[in-house]
């Protein structure tokens, strides 16, 4: 059921080196790794990035089956990437059949792009396996706070995320209840054309929205009665502490990023 697994998300609790790092460092490092993947264009560099990925799987001490679960949905896309690049890139032809040609350039490009997609998704999976949703929410709030000056309210966003998280199971139950009630009145949700089905949904969606915004109103009043006045200056129950190893970790990825740029320019 949606309510049971929603708080844990994709997180795998453990006490590995990666789990102990600050979520902010991990988010920034993941972005650096992902951008660097688009900068490199050399097989040796791809090999280096693959080795880093494998090392971090070992450091994270998460079961391989969980990484595999994250990667499974993109495998078909990896295959499409490889095949499309095989046939679409011109160069020295090594095999041809009718209008289809495979070139040596296409072959190497196809595998490289497939590997890139694989590493991209794999490394991103590692982030959500080693940070809990709450840690990541705090990290996003901290990382977005400089953007408050251009009108992006970081603390409001974090508050909205927590409220949404809390209300998903409640509204889910409410949706089920409304759907059952309409079924009892003779609604059919799995018959007829798309337009008919959409019309059948109207008596579900309207009460759901009215109920949701009534809850929003009540919650806002309750918060204001307890003197909530926006997020600025609010203190936290759990404080994330930035340690030396977080700085080292981030520096490592900055170095990797710089190396990728140099590799691309002079490689």
């Amino acid at each position, binding site marked *: 059921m*949606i309510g049971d697994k*929603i*708080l844990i*998300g*994709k997180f795998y609790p453990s006490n590995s080196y990666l789990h102990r790092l600050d979520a902010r460092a991990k988010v920034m490092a*993941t972005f650096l790794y992902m951008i660097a993947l*688009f900068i490199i264009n050399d097989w040796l560099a791809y090999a280096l990035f693959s080795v880093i990925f494998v090392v971090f799987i070992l450091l994270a001490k998460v079961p391989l089956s969980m990484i595999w679960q*994250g990667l499974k*949905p*993109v495998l078909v*896309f990896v295959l*499409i*990437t490889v095949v499309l*690049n095989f046939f*679409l890139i011109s160069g020295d032809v090594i095999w041809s059949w009718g209008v289809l040609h495979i070139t040596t350039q296409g072959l190497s*490009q196809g595998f490289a*792009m497939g590997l890139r*997609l694989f590493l*991209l998704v*794999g490394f*991103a999976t590692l*982030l*959500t396996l080693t*940070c809990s*949703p709450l840690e*990541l929410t705090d990290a996003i709030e901290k990382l977005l706070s400089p953007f408050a000056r251009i009108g992006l309210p970081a603390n409001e*966003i974090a508050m*909205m*995320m927590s*409220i*949404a*998280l809390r*209300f*998903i199971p409640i*509204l*889910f139950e409410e*949706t089920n209840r409304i759907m059952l009630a309409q079924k009892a009145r003779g609604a059919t949700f*799995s018959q007829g054309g*798309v*337009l008919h*089905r*959409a*019309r059948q*949904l*109207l008596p579900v*969606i*309207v009460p759901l*929205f*009215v109920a*949701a*915004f*009534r809850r*929003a*109103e009540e*919650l*806002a009043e309750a*918060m204001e009665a307890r003197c*909530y*006045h*926006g997020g600025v200056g609010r203190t936290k129950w759990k404080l994330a502490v930035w340690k030396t190893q977080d700085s080292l970790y981030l520096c490592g990825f900055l170095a990797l990023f710089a190396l990728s740029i140099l590799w691309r320019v002079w490689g």
Partner: protein
Amino acid sequence: MSKTYRITAVAMMVAIMAIFAQIAIPIPISPVPLTLQTAGLIIAMVIFNWRESSLAMLVYILLGSVGVPVFSAGKAGLAVLAGPTGGYLYGFIAAALIGSSLLAHVRANTKHRLFKAYICVAFALAVMFCCGMLHFCLIMHVGLKEAFMLTILPYLPLDILKIAAFTPLAWKVKQSLHKQYPKIF
């Protein structure tokens, strides 16, 4: 709308988006089931102003990327956003921003208002598809033509049906919310 109420209302919209993404209705003509995600996006565009609707979509995407299973079929994580279909997700933000700003000019009780709303929604969704397609090109390293053939063309009839079905629905939601909460909507 007070600041606190804005926060809670947008949060509820996010929760509804999360639920809509899980409700799949099988369709006889298509292998991909119809999720209500698009309906959620269109309703958000119609009932909120540009600031709130785009904020709702941003929060929805952030909630999914921190690992809460709110994307379609219970998917989650930054991996979905970085993956080949991630462009559609951040396309939601652009679509909400543009759709709401355009729809703000469509006043109630004017002539052809539903027709105008269709145009606004179709334009906003086209922006979302462009984001999705460009992201697909970048991630999969294919040309625009191939990306169009793979990601847009097969789903075009269904998407037109979705716009046709969900825009009047969103309008009805707005009207009933207006009746319940005349000060806000």
